[in-house]
């Protein structure tokens, strides 16, 4: 199978962080939560490969442990959102009529609110915390999935291959499974890849504002905030978590853009043989 170089590089980068998300807290050289005031703001050494922060915690260990929170949760929430949004899109697009109108009004209403604002509002109501933020993101994000699937269903359902499928005895469920899911797969893959990146950015931003992960939990956005007062004296505190966010989001965008360019069976693909 041929995978374009761009997607391949993004996948490798993303895969690296995904592995780190599962093994990070296990591989970490030090306890990411251990506070040692005698060791604060240390430069890189053998014990602390990236130095220590203002409370004497190992930066590398905190970044590795933070991968789990940032990447794992973002990926999980997008998968959950897709699981909610895709069936709603199929229901809305395939049934049409009143169900469609009703569901799309709900989507319009929820979609009118920027997810950042909803997240801040939810944090205000339910208190700050990762799960509340994830809930807020899920409330807004499902709409894009439902819309994409609905759009695909509406353009495809009147095409003759769907009619031919009905004539040859397929039930609505079979048509969704055999035809429409396949048609929706590429726009969905592009959206999922891009959304994981966007969610990581959002999650980090909210944690930076103190609405997401709560101290002392290691999370990249929260680490940026921790390092802010020491930025001039010890830029490493912000540099490394910032770099990680940059790389992961870059990886997601590369995959997403690469998929957009190539997920068309008609286009000729250039890339490396896998």
């Amino acid at each position: 199978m041929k995978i374009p170089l761009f997607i391949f590089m993004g996948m490798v980068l993303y895969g690296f962080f995904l592995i780190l998300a599962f093994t990070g807290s296990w591989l970490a050289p030090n306890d990411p939560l251990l506070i040692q005031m005698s060791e604060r703001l240390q430069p890189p050494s053998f014990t602390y490969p990236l130095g220590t922060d203002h409370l004497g915690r190992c930066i590398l260990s905190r970044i590795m442990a933070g991968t789990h929170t940032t990447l794992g949760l973002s990926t999980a929430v997008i998968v959950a959102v897709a699981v909610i949004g895709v069936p709603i899109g199929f229901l809305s697009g395939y049934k049409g009529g009143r169900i469609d109108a009703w569901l799309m009004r709900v989507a319009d209403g929820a979609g009118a609110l920027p997810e950042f604002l909803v997240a801040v509002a939810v944090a205000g109501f339910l208190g700050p915390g990762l799960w509340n933020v994830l809930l807020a993101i899920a409330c807004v994000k499902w709409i894009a999935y439902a819309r994409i699937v609905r759009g695909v269903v509406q353009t495809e359902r009147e095409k003759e291959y769907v009619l031919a499928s009905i004539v040859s005895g397929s039930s609505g469920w079979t048509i969704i499974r055999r035809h429409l899911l396949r048609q929706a797969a590429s726009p969905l893959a592009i959206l999922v890849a891009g959304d994981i990146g966007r969610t990581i950015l959002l999650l980090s931003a909210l944690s930076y504002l103190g609405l997401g992960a709560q101290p002392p939990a290691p999370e990249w956005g929260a680490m940026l905030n921790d390092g802010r007062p020491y930025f001039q004296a010890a830029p490493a505190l912000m540099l490394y978590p910032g770099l990680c966010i940059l790389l992961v989001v870059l990886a997601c965008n590369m995959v997403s853009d690469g998929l957009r360019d190539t997920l068309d069976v008609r286009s000729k693909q250039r890339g490396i043989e896998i």
Partner: protein
Amino acid sequence: MSECMQVRHLSKHYARGGKHVIAVDHVSFTIRQGECVGLVGESGSGKSTLVRLLLALEHPDQGEILFQDMSLTRTNRRVLRQLRQHIQVVFQDSTASLNDRLPVWRSVLEPLDNYAHVIPVFFRGVVLSRREQAERLLNIVGLAREHMDRYPHELSGGQRQRVCIARGISLCPQLLICDEPTSSLDVTTQSQILRLLQSLRRQLNMSVLFISHDLAAVAQLCHRMLVMQQGRIVDACKVDELWLAERHPYTKVLVSAAR
């Protein structure tokens, strides 16, 4: 010959942009077993709507369709599914008729996937894998093994239409409805597809409803023909009576236009 399909007083209207358009207006005809009936008429005469009604893709406002004395219009979902096994279709646009994300052999097998218990005559007495079944079906319509794994856009228009025909005959239907199957093809390919349809009809003893605006094609393939104008059947005759003087004026217009 016994009756395969009977259509009685079928009507369908649409409300398009506030206007009341009667697409099919009290249409009645019968198709007998093993017979090929041509339906001609210009664009917008209601042919396509009629096809959708006959395939039970839409519900008529009035009238009834009987398929082997069972109603297609007043029936429940289970019976309709059983009847659908016997009525298959080949559409005009072979590109839109195939899912562009499925290799053609999967499209060909779709009807057999849905009716797993049906063993068509060409598979009797042999045990074939799914791919072998697809290969045999494609062979029947003149495609080779090498075409099996291709995607629709990798085939020519004529080849795609052959794939659609293979799908249409895979259940050995009693009635094959061909909705302008040749009108998007070039002249040579047209006549090849017509010859293919003719030989398949004889082999499988199917009834065929052949919809076209090409009188020559209808004359080549069909026993009888119906002429449709503005939603009505204005004329019906045997193909060799087409040039007689007592034909409907509109039929005469079509005949003179075809010359």
